[in-house]
């Protein structure tokens, strides 16, 4: 087990290195010029040339890459072109809202999706099953931002249940914090609920067909016990796998949802940084997100052995 973890950890290094080089080269080839942006809405050509020089944008590409990689290894992502702040500080400021949104979304997803998936499998072929399936297909098909606007319109404007926008840190109290996260979490979770309900249903259905389940019934165990103890446990591996895949989706969804609800998280930072050609920030965000993705998938791999004793490393 320990050997496996070390091996997996080592394997992430080339992956992240690949990401870093790829991201650097990609962004340096963009046509936008951060110097022109920095000079302001009506800056003059002289001012722009000056700024280019001071940012080191006139150095050869390879030199810039070398300096940048060296700094990253020391944990220094450089300074944002715009905010005169360290990128790492900028990212730290934005972590909390994103983490909060992602966590509530994940909890909501699991709390809703797994039961309805199990229910649909258990009541296979009934109207319950069919409505869960219909919802899961429809949930994939509505763009996140359209859903967001509809929810705001209905539940924040027409019925004044939730705030329209914004974020309050948990340090302001649990209620204001959660109150503002309800609509964004619902918006973001619909697509994952659709996805995970579907997988849960499929996995449980498959397990229910297996011999040992029949044996369990034959032993006279109650259906609920069978369902929860045997079926769900054995269906857990594919479900957890899909949650892991969902992390990539979640990150994409966060970018859109944060824009719609004005949540000052990493997603908003990403869009701002891309539109402003803030290279150091974009690079750092992509690397951070990729790192998170890799780590979570590592954790998921490890969790297999907990969920399914047959899997040993």
């Amino acid at each position, binding site marked *: 087990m320990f050997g496996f973890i070390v091996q997996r950890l080592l394997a992430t290094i080339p992956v992240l290195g*690949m990401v870093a080089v790829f991201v650097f080269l990609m962004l340096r080839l963009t046509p936008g010029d951060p110097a022109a942006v920095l000079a302001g809405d009506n800056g003059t050509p002289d001012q722009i040339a000056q700024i280019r020089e001071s940012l080191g944008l006139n150095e050869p590409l390879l030199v810039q890459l070398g300096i940048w990689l060296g700094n990253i290894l020391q944990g220094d992502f450089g300074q944002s072109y715009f905010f005169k702040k360290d990128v790492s500080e900028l990212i730290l400021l934005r972590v909390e809202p994103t983490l909060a949104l992602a966590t509530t979304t994940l909890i909501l997803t699991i709390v809703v999706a797994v039961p309805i998936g199990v229910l649909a499998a258990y009541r296979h072929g009934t109207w319950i099953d069919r409505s869960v399936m219909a919802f899961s297909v429809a949930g994939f*098909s509505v763009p996140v931002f359209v859903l967001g606007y509809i929810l705001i319109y209905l539940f924040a404007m027409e019925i004044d249940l939730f705030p329209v926008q914004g974020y309050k840190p948990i340090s302001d109290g649990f209620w204001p914090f959660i109150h503002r996260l309800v609509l964004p979490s619902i918006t973001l979770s619909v697509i994952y609920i659709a996805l995970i309900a*579907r997988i849960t249903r499929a996995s449980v259905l498959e397990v229910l067909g297996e011999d040992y389940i029949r044996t369990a019934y034959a032993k006279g165990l109650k259906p609920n016990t069978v369902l929860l103890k045997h079926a769900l446990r054995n269906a857990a591996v594919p479900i957890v796998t*899909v949650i892991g895949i969902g992390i990539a989706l979640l990150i994409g969804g966060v970018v859109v949802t944060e824009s719609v609800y004005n949540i000052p998280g990493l997603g908003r930072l990403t869009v701002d940084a891309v539109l402003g050609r803030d290279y150091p920030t974009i690079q750092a965000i992509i690397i951070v997100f990729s790192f998170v993705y890799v780590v979570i998938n590592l954790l998921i791999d490890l969790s297999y052995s907990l969920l399914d004793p047959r899997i040993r490393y």
Partner: protein
Amino acid sequence: MTEGTEHLVDGAASADAASRKATLWEQVVRNPSVMFGGIVLGIMVLIAVCAPFLGTMDPSDIDPAWRNKKPGTERVITADDGTQSTWTYLMGTDTLGRDTYSRVIYGAQVSLAVGLVVAMLSLAIGLVVGLVSGYIRWLDSIVMRVMDGLMAIPGILLAIALVSLADAGLVTVILAITIPEIPRVVRLVRSIVLSIREEPYVEAAISVGTRVPLILIRHVLPNTIAPLIVQGTYICASAILVEAILSFLGVGIPPETPTWGNIMAEGRILFRVFPHNILFPGIFLAITVLAVNMLGDGLRDTLDPRMRKRL
């Protein structure tokens, strides 16, 4: 956004392929999901192809005096020779006075094309890379490391960054949506190759000296078709949605070319006053994606017996 489900679909084709063949087409056609999805998609394609004949005008024709009109607004047009005719803005107009109906209808062309082209491109590239890397061991580890790297970057982030790479345009957007899809196809194809390589009949073919390309074409390729078709439909649905999201974030196809995504993106700030610019393209988009997804589900059920047993 649907690239999750197909990972459970990567089982190899079954042994009873031959007996299945005769009835396969029948099964596919009879499947209600395929029927529904196919018909709706067919209508959409028809709309896209026939756009100029559906009572539309030039979708980029601007007229500031007629901006922000509600659906159903009528306008009397006097031609040069003095004759008058009435034009009805069925779905209203946008902030430049363009006819939303015409834009939505023409938008079908681009949105569908984006979905289709992205699906074809990522399948084609993924198939070639997957086949080759699945069969050539030393290449495999290099290719898979690159794919791991690509996959580690969240798709939307990668697409956003890629679009800002070049001038925003149709080609850029298509490439930006395609690239993040490729690694998944590669993995799918590779896993099929790996599993088939161990099959006795392939080992037999190798032992009698059949050359690798021939083995790939004769034995491996046919086994990839069914899962790839299924995967392709999901990629198509995903691509249509991602295009809309890119437009929403301001890095999509330029607004001169109407797509459902950029009609909505342009209409979104006026959502509360003039919801029609979000509503109509939104409905078309959702229905189309739904149809493609259902087509995919149906195809998976019928083409992939392992899954058929389950659902």
